[in-house]
């Protein structure tokens, strides 16, 4: 037992060195994915079938296939198309050689699919009375969307989005498949080199718990701030 702790202490620096990679992957994918979710949710609610169906199809595919398959297909699948193509001569090639950008791309699209649908539900859940009140004030439908529907929808779905972000943080562990060595991938590398099965997993699990704890605290502050009007005035 004692020996296990010594071993964990010896691998901790290697694992901690991979934490920034996990955080950067999570942060970039959350920002890009959630930004993409808005147009997707709006398109999903559009009266025009040529806008609504593609968006519904995108959500269906992103939610219907494993993230592992998406990541793999985006990296190695696109790789099949690369040999001899113009991409290899372009200025983007130094970036497109790296698994990192493919991982961000895959995680962002996946997040956009899930959050797009959540946001769609939240927009539809905005109470009718509030929208009618806005109409009574003479607001245009565009103004109603930006002033009433969207802010209210964000308030409504914020707790769910916190959960999605935690899932995303853990999903970044798939990046090691495409040569991006984040915390979980690094733990698996240590397993293979040292032939210790449990200690690297325990250590990685502990790191994730700490990260998730910090993340939930931060998002809770954001949530409180955005929903501050709903707090008990005395407690607040």
């Amino acid at each position, binding site marked *: 037992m004692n020996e296990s702790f010594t071993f964990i202490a010896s691998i901790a620096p290697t694992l901690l060195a991979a934490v920034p990679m996990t955080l950067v992957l999570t942060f970039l994918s959350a920002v890009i994915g959630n930004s993409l979710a808005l147009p997707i949710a709006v398109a999903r609610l559009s009266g025009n079938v040529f806008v609504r169906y593609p968006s519904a199809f995108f959500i269906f595919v992103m939610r219907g296939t494993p993230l592992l398959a998406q990541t793999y297909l985006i990296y*190695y699948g696109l*790789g*099949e198309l*690369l*040999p001899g193509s113009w991409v*290899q001569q372009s200025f983007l090639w130094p970036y497109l*050689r790296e698994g990192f950008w493919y991982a961000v791309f895959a995680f962002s699209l996946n997040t956009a699919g899930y959050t797009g649908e959540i946001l769609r539900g939240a927009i539809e859940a905005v109470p009718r009375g509030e929208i009618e009140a806005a109409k009574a004030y003479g607001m245009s439908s565009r103004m109603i969307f930006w002033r009433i529907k969207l802010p209210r929808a964000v308030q409504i779905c914020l707790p769910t989005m916190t959960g999605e972000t935690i899932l995303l943080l853990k999903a970044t562990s798939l990046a*090691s*498949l*495409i*040569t991006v*060595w984040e915390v979980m*991938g690094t733990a*698996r*590398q240590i*397993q*293979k*080199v*040292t*032939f210790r*099965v449990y200690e690297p997993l325990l250590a990685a699990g502990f790191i994730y718990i700490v990260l998730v704890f910090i993340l939930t605290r931060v998002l809770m502050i954001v949530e409180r701030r955005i929903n501050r009007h709903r707090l008990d005035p005395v407690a607040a």
Partner: protein
Amino acid sequence: MLSKIFKGTMLAAALVLATSAVAKDKIRVGISPEAYPPFTSFNAKNVWEGFEIDLLAALCKQMDADCPIVSIAWDGLIPALTGKKIDIIFNSMSITEERMKVIDFSDKYYNSPAELIGGKDAPKVTTTANPDGKGGMIANPADLKGKTIGVQTATIHADYAQKYFKDSTVKVYDTADNHNADLVAGRIDYALLDSVAADDFAKANAAKGIEAKLIVPGDPIFGVGAGAGLRKGDAKLKDKLNAAIKAVRASGEYDMVAKKYFNFNIYGE
């Protein structure tokens, strides 16, 4: 009454003992299901095949033992061995010092060199004297300066690349299949892997410009070759296996099996 039951139990026990004395020894062999042709793979008919499977059959015949194959993922092989779920690992496992800390090995049963492969735009690689001055040769790091080299994680090839190719980017992949895919995609310039696997891959992808760049000279990092992994302290099985390896080498049975798969000396020096 009691004595009758006692007698019956004794008889049953004696019978069990007698039959087990006649039955062959059972050696459970761990092999990972990841295909590693031409050494081990699981064919379309759900049957194991390859050089190691044939060699294993020859060795088990020599030892007069039953050798059921247990399919266990590569990462889980050593834990399964130490956890007594299997008795030997027979899966192209290189004999390394790091592994020797945890398990024992039989004598080597083959030793194939490492090889650098690359796309047609990548120049051939030369060899140069090892800077440690002990007279060994290494793949010339100057030829690989600024290049990206793919290796599989936790392999002797990864260790070698990380030790000698200081001015290159060494990209670590979880499997060899994945660095091969990226070599074809042009994301890496070279891949360093076992020559047998490299030859197979280069042959299959010759149309895409993949070719051999260098057979890497032997190095202490590469170790002495592949041996059967054994539990520490399982000296009886180790002696038996080593004797069997010696016997099939001497009888020519080894060469007969090897000739089926390789056109060079797979046993090494």
